[in-house]
């Protein structure tokens, strides 16, 4: 006995294959019968890709985003697998719809195929449910806000608050929400879809795919097999093509419950999103429940309609389906057009993409276990910004935040800052609320704009030799400094010397700012009147250096 016979005797694969290929196919091969093959293919593809994704994805509120960013951006071909799974979901919705249409067109909803028709409708519903439960899983801004809105809609239905608590795993979104969505998306819903697909396949075997018109001799293998294979290939090519075209699937910044992310549902829910716009306030349930509910009821009633009204019923079924499809398509197109015209939405999308890019770049060095938003801790500027907020911002305003007690540090020690300071040092923006009140203001009556520019240029020349300077102005300023303005009676310019005002040698440089942070009451700095806390010993050398760099780096470069 050959190995082939040995296996055949035990498994019967060859005869099963022949039985599959040689089964009669009364109506002859038709493209509309191949939609089911595409649907089966998509299910298998989604299952395989989904299983691959579970080997990297972690459904917890702290890990979901970081693990998705890791598998998408750092794992070889991870972007392709995730992208195909995401685009596959979209195509699955389209093909499940086409499957319903194909059955309707083939009149495969009347006796004895009513259950096949119900199963096809259920598969379409489950395709949408798989999208609802799958899209939030990355726990990025889009996913998080989408599920918030969707649970909000569910909450409006009778008993909806119970549904929300059950799906969400409590009153707020978190670890349990992700685990529940994941269990539904990866186990429960796919098992039901698989069972329904098997059921439809068996129904097709039992009754044939559709009522045959003129009976034609021939079997499945005579043409439908190849048509099915072509349908599967085209489907796979579309999924792959979309994925490559979009460079995978989008991943926004980690979910932030405090952000104003402008949430939009997945494209296949946009028609419902748009429909909701026409029914505001107490009428909202008409859009979220009454109309969709009526549509589903109508489709479920198709077998009865035709039985009751005959030819008129068939016209009603096909007409109703056509109106639903056309309406959904029109609403979808309108929602997309609205968003394209909506400047605020487009602007927020640009911002969201920028933030996503930054978060994903930072995630490449690993996200702290606190997860999600903790990715921003990787930004070196984040730490120093926190230091500034903690230790400096209460007194020194910066870029519109904080301040009031001490000089503003926005554009600190730039030409513009120095000019404004010399014009009025006692302004609240500068030393107005400090004990340094001895420097007299130099209004335009005492100092012309031209002279002011020269003085400032000279003061800037005391900072760093590599400054781009206007030599003529510096010379003019130097003369003003000593002779006309008598600045030198209070401000020394040779390092180390002290006087009434701060020594201006190297003022505004990194080293100078560091010295001020350490101890601003040094005799050659602000002296005994200084109120700023001494940070020497309170902050580490690195922290002081980082803060100094943080302030100095924000100074705008000299105007050309």
């Amino acid at each position, binding site marked *: 006995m050959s190995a082939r016979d040995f296996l*055949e005797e035990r498994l019967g694969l060859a005869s099963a294959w022949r039985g599959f290929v040689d089964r009669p196919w009364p109506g002859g091969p038709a493209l509309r019968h191949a939609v089911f093959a595409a649907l089966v293919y998509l299910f298998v593809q989604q299952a395989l890709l989904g299983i691959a994704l579970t080997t990297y994805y972690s459904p917890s509120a702290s890990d979901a985003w970081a693990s998705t960013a890791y598998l998408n951006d750092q794992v070889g071909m991870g972007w392709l697998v995730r992208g195909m799974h995401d685009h596959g979901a979209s195509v699955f919705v389209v093909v499940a719809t086409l499957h319903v249409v194909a059955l309707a067109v083939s009149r495969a909803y009347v006796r004895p195929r009513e259950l096949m028709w119900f199963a096809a409708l259920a598969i379409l519903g489950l395709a949408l449910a798989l999208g609802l439960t799958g899209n939030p899983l990355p726990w990025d801004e889009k996913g998080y806000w989408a599920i918030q809105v969707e649970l909000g809609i569910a909450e409006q239905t009778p008993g909806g608050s119970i549904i929300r608590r059950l799906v969400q795993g409590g009153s707020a979104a978190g670890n349990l929400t992700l685990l529940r969505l994941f269990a539904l998306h990866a186990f429960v819903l796919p098992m039901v879809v698989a069972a329904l697909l098997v059921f439809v396949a068996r129904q097709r075997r039992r009754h044939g795919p559709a009522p045959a018109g003129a009976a034609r001799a021939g079997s499945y293998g005579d043409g439908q097999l190849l048509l099915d294979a072509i349908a599967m290939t085209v489907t*796979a090519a579309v999924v792959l093509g979309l994925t490559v075209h979009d460079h995978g699937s989008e991943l926004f910044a980690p979910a932030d419950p405090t952000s104003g992310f402008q949430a939009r549902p997945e494209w296949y829910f946009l028609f419902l999103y748009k429909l909701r716009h026409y029914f505001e306030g107490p009428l909202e349930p008409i859009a979220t429940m009454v109309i969709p509910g009526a549509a589903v009821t109508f489709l479920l009633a198709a077998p009865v309609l035709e039985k009751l009204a005959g030819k008129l019923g068939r016209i009603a079924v096909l007409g109703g389906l056509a109106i639903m499809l056309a309406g959904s398509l029109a609403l979808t197109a309108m929602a997309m057009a609205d968003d394209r015209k909506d400047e605020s939405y487009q602007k927020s999308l640009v911002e969201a993409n920028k933030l996503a890019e930054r978060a994903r770049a930072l995630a490449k060095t690993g996200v*702290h276990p606190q997860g999600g938003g903790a990715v921003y801790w990787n930004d070196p500027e984040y730490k120093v910004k926190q230091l500034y907020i903690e230790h400096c911002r209460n007194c020194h305003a910066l870029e519109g935040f904080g301040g009031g007690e001490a000089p503003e540090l926005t554009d600190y020690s730039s030409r513009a800052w120095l000019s404004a300071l010399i014009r009025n040092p006692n302004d609240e923006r500068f030393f107005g609320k400090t004990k340094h009140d001895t420097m007299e203001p130099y209004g335009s009556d005492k100092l012309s704009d031209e002279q002011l520019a020269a003085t400032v240029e000279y003061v800037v020349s005391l900072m760093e030799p590599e400054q781009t300077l206007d030599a003529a102005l510096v010379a003019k300023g130097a003369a003003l400094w000593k002779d006309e303005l008598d600045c030198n009676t209070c401000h020394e310019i040779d390092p180390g010397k002290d006087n009434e005002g701060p020594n201006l040698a190297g003022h505004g440089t990194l080293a100078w700012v560091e010295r001020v942070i350490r101890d601003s009451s040094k005799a050659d700095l602000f002296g005994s009147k200084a109120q700023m806390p001494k940070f020497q010993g309170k902050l580490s050398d690195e922290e002081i250096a980082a803060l100094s760099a943080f302030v100095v780096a924000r100074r705008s470069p000299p105007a050309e």
Partner: protein
Amino acid sequence: MTIPRDDDPDGKTAAPPTTRRGLLTATAGVLGIGVAATVLGPVAVMLGQPLRHDATEGEGDFIPAGPRSLFAGDKPVKVDLYADRVDAWNRVVQVKVGSAWVLAQGGTLVALSTVCPHLGCGIDYVPEESKFYCACHKSYFAIDGAVETGPSPRGMDALELQDDGQLVSIRYRRFKIGKKTQEPA
């Protein structure tokens, strides 16, 4: 046309496949293989990532083990080594990456990994016998780490140690288990 049944495994009663039939089936098969490849290819590459890149980082640098005075006695001291570590998508700060036995040998300090070279259990010290002992499969090691009895294929793994008189640091590494000679894991 007759459909073959299970009791007719050879399908002798079925019609012989025509050339056209064979061509259709073969074409469908080729398409099927192509489609399967577009899905299974990327999946295989994705699953094979650990063969190309390590998902964890954080071993390899000298890690402070403790002040020199901690190891002044004549008994081995077990130290836990903490370092920052990247584990796939996470960066974990100061997590325990491993531990080592530190002891003086002829005046200089030596560090021995607590990972048993047999199957990776934790090696303990038995003060009464002045020996190291792995309780999982009963391997005994001498005070210098050499195998005395039991299934361990080699002595305890020595780790690089730095002693500047004040601070003792150890470069923590893992080695392949079950090998006669030390190989990096």
